[in-house]
């Protein structure tokens, strides 16, 4: 325990010094180049060139500085010179507005001096109190208390990092609240990433008098992820994997750190899926994406079972049996398909049993939910595995809110990576699944004000 604690302290200190070393020029460049999550083809082609999203991101100029230990030294030196003077005013937010969910991280300073307390304006105080004393906001906002990072040092300040989410549908309400609370008077910069940063930019400006600093979602994702891995999770590693993934009996969750994370294949499963090959903090490319993601799971589940929420859908799925819905190899061949080395238990056709009317009429909602989950998960696993092989990367990191409270999928992905690669590939997961983009956005805030 002590040992773990010291690790955190050490890491915490480092993280407090942490700043990202790419200038504004890259920001604008990347902000445009990177696309949305999981962008895929639409067959109603309108021509045009949709293929630019795959450009590999090379940050020129400051690239060298960011790699290896010289960069760290540099960061250290520059921090001591400038953090205090250029620290941004509170409140510190980072926001990631996705297709389905808005992810918000909020840094609550716990080292506020009496002097600061007095200077603090009333609505800043009320924001802090509102966010930290509640675990639910309105009908749909939730604070993931179990994910909170305590006594974290960022930019020279110590505080707690809170993780809040609400549906993107509630964005108008959120903007309205910003207007009610007169957020614009705080003169803070609202750093936002995700597609919604673009979609809602005008609304923020027009309705709440707030100017967003729009950030590229993939930049933020990687930056946030690497940061979170470095600071750890309140004394534990952020990262985990499954030991014995191919054996349901002895399969156990095992914590680990991404000591030497590169290269890694980063699979971000939000509403859709983006797959990135990451070679260093600033050097990555979007390999591909698929439109079959978390949004597809929930969308199909809603249509098939009448459920309304992700939690409900997962709950049903946990009770269901997909083999009543899917046609397995053994359903067709009576056993293994030996000519091609396919196990009888492998899924031959997702939803294949549903071609028959009788089975359609008697199938349970739980089975349908489970089959949907298994279909989507296996497909992501299959594409990720192919990308890993094509890119020659052995470490596959799965993130995104699709994996929240979703052990069915995490275990299935771990199994699929291990089984189909004959043990060559390892699936890794992170505790803060979907929050890395928001964390990355917050880090940008802490960086921006340094260089006036």
């Amino acid at each position, binding site marked *: 325990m002590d040992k773990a604690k010291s690790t955190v302290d050490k890491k915490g200190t480092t993280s407090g010094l942490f700043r990202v070393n790419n200038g504004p020029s890259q920001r604008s460049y990347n902000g*445009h*180049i990177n*696309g*949305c*999550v*999981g*962008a*895929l*083809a*639409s*067959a109603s*082609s*309108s021509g*045009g*060139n*949709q*293929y*630019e*999203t*795959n*450009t*590999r991101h*090379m940050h020129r100029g400051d690239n060298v500085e960011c790699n290896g230990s010289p960069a760290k030294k540099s960061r250290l030196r520059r921090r001591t010179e400038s953090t205090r003077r250029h620290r941004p005013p509170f409140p510190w937010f980072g926001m990631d507005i996705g297709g*389905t969910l808005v992810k918000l991280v909020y840094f609550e300073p716990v080292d506020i001096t009496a002097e600061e307390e007095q200077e603090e304006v009333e609505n800043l105080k009320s924001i802090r109190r509102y966010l930290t004393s509640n675990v639910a906001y309105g009908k749909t906002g939730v604070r993931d208390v179990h994910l909170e990072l305590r006594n974290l040092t960022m930019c020279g300040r110590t505080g707690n990092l809170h993780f809040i989410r609400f*549906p993107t549908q509630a964005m108008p309400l959120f903007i309205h609240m910003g207007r009610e609370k007169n957020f614009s008077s705080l003169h803070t910069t609202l750093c936002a990433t995700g*597609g*919604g940063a*673009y*979609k*809602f930019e005008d609304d923020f400006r027009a309705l709440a008098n707030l100017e967003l600093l729009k950030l590229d979602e993939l930049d933020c994702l990687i930056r946030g992820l690497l940061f979170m891995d470095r600071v750890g999770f309140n004394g534990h590693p952020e990262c985990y994997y499954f030991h014995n993934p191919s054996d349901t009996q002895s399969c156990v969750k095992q914590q680990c750190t991404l000591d030497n994370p590169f290269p890694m294949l980063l699979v971000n499963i939000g*509403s*859709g899926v983006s797959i990135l090959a990451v070679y260093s903090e600033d050097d990555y490319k979007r*390999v*591909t994406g*698929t*439109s*079959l993601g*978390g*949004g*597809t799971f929930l*969308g*199909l*589940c809603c249509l098939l079972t009448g459920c309304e929420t992700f939690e409900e859908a997962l709950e049903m799925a946990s009770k269901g049996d997909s083999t009543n819905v899917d046609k397995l190899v053994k359903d*067709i061949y009576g056993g293994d398909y030996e*000519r091609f*080395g396919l196990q009888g238990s492998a899924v*031959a*056709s*997702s*939803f*294949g049993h*549903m*071609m*028959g*009317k009788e089975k*359609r009429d008697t199938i349970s909602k739980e089975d349908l939910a489970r089959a949907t989950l298994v*279909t989507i998960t296996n*497909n992501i696993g*299959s594409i990720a595995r*192919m990308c890993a092989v094509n890119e020659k990367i052995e470490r596959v990191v799965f993130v995104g809110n699709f994996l929240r409270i979703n052990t069915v999928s995490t275990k299935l992905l771990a199994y699929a990576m291990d089984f189909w690669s004959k043990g060559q590939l390892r699936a890794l997961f992170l505790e803060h699944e979907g929050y890395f983009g928001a964390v990355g956005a917050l880090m940008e805030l802490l960086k921006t004000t340094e260089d006036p």
Partner: protein
Amino acid sequence: MAECSQADSGDASRHHTMDKSIILPPDEIFRNLENAKRFAIDIGGSLTKLAYYSTVQHKVAKVRSFDHSAKEAAGDKLYEISVQEEVTARLHFIKFENAYIETCLDFIKDHLVNTDTKVIKATGGGAHKFKELLERKLRLKVDKEDEMTCLIKGCNFVLRNIPHEAFVYAKHADSEFRFQTTQPDIFPYLLVNIGSGVSIVKVESEDKFERIGGSSIGGGTFWGLGALLTKTKRFDELLQLASKGQHTSVDMLVKDIYGGSYGSLGLTGDLIASSFGKSATADKEFSKEDMAKSLLHMISNDIGQLACLYAKLHQLSRVYFGGFFIRGHPVTMHTITYSINFFTKAMLTSSPKTDVHIAVVSHIYNETFLCVQGEVQALFLRHEGYLGAIGAFLKGAEEDNPNQYSWGENYAGSSGLMSISPEMNPMQRARSGTFDMLEMDRLERQLVNLHLLQDPSSYIPDTVDLTEDAPAREYWLDCFEEALDGVVKRAVASQPDMAESVERAEKFRHKYRHKLQTLRHQPFAYGSLTVRSLLDTREHCLNEFNFPDPYSKIKQKENDSALKYYQKAVRSLEELSWEQRQFALVRGVLAGNVFDWGAKAVSDVLDSDPEFGFEEAKRQLEERPWLVDSYDQWLQRLKGRPHKCALFFVDNSGVDIILGVMPFVRELLSRGTEVVLASNSGPALNDVTNGELQILTERIAAMDPVIQAGLKDDRLTLIQSGSSSPCLDLSRLDKVLAMVVRERHTDLVIIEGMGRAIHTNYYATLSCESLKMAVIKNSWLADRLGGKLFSVVFKYEVPAGGAHANAV
């Protein structure tokens, strides 16, 4: 997964009993059952494909020289024409709905006369289900074959034997189907079979293939999930729903997340970010059509993406798609094509920036670049539905060595693409039994590429693709339809002693007219529509009704009379100076070529004025400069060293071959050039056949010591071309011919006549010198080429690098 038993079983069995009473027309559907053997069957989820091998007795016209002693008695006649029965092998493939299986089996049992067949090879998911029925009805032992093995075997077979088998589908192009030329080497390729699941198979050679991957999201997912979402039972109906829907109300697009498109930066808002992403957030109802459409996109995109990933990993660019999800459905061919185009380009541009310079450099070598980078094309097959049946059949017919022969699609007996496409005629498909057929004839000769083709993989025999050229298509279809009366008349006239010939000729008329009508609506039915395919279809239909050689008597008469002028013609040529003679020889070939019953303008004149003479033809010829005129270069070349060996593809009988070609050949021989005369193996119009040419040449040799010496010294060789068409496909030539041409170091190829040098091969580039000579005997075509009737094409070409490059 391969296609497997996925039928809505309740549905199928209902039809089963209902359709028992159907009456099958025996001379149209299960033909030649009397001699049928080696049955094979592929029973899929909804369609059954039956295959068998039959021997077809049909009449062939044979020519036989009168023997010397009987010569006097034979009078003027040069040779004897006899119609003989000949037995050839044919493969029959019939596709019908599973509902008719029992009726069909009964029918087969009743008509199967003489067979020692003991087993039936069976494949497909339904083989298991119908095993008992098969054994009971046919009293044959069911021998089950692995589905994928059959599929691959069948695929190899059609790719090798059927020209224009594969096509690219482009929904919005002038012609939706872009047929691919047959590749000299079909391997390696990727076969993506989309049955209820997806199997991705890499095929490296005839016997070497491997399932490298697959996906459970396939046709069964579309069907099963689609049925759940839309309460629509049938697969075809689901596709129809999808074709009417709007996926944007169900899918979450980039613009739904980002608020707009980023067109200037290459990221359009219309890309799907999350399939069904909108159905999770709204309480509203979604239309069946929209959900079906969204599902179709989701599955097609997913399969396309996986196919591209596998193609990239294994560095393959030829990817064929098959399975019931694809089978003739324009909707799925379109979405799969779209997906492949999207992902293959996405992968090409996903290279790291550090590799940009490679792309720039490679831009200069564009083709190499694409090849190296592996741009994937989605390819579909005309006979995709038959692959399993063909493969199962081949497994059972191994002792007949079917792969040792070349086979040809019989246009008369085959239904053509989309004959039962639900989109073309949904009611027909739903209500009645439609039978689709493919027949393939075993060719007497094995066919191979001419090694002198500059680039065999890009060689396209046909000059105009009528599938793409609508005005030309109109013209030629009209032209063939108008000529039909004359053809029928001549067919009847060729068999004056046979009473039922009128009836048969009418059947021929009916069949060919029907083909022409089909081609008007579906020009893509047999691959690219060309003048050649129209001519070949006519020949196939004539053969079908036992008119093997309607021109035999005309040819005989013309040959007879032309022979009488041979010596005179040669003498007058010998009186000319060398230079005058060269020109006169060329003019002779051209004038001879005016005698052509295949060309409408000429057959009219010939019909009305049989005295139309050689001299008259010369007067009709266009004066120099000709429409295409490289005579000066040719003459210049003749002043140089003689050619080693000339390959001469001849055209018509009569004046053309005897007074035009033979003197020209004689001159070549005199120059010291060996000559290979290539003529048709079987009859086509008034084209001289190899059999006829043998006799003619003997007779000429008797009059002409030059020809005689040529034959004797083996410097003049007559070889059949392997073709029975008035046109010429240099990628399908008789193997013996190809071998001789290679052995003799042929350095000059002469192609004569409209069919061989204009309708086909006009743009063919050879690796040796070539001479294409023809008179345009069709005013429409002349007009198109910027000339007039009887304009002359004299196209002498020397390959880049010079005439000497291939001298050795």
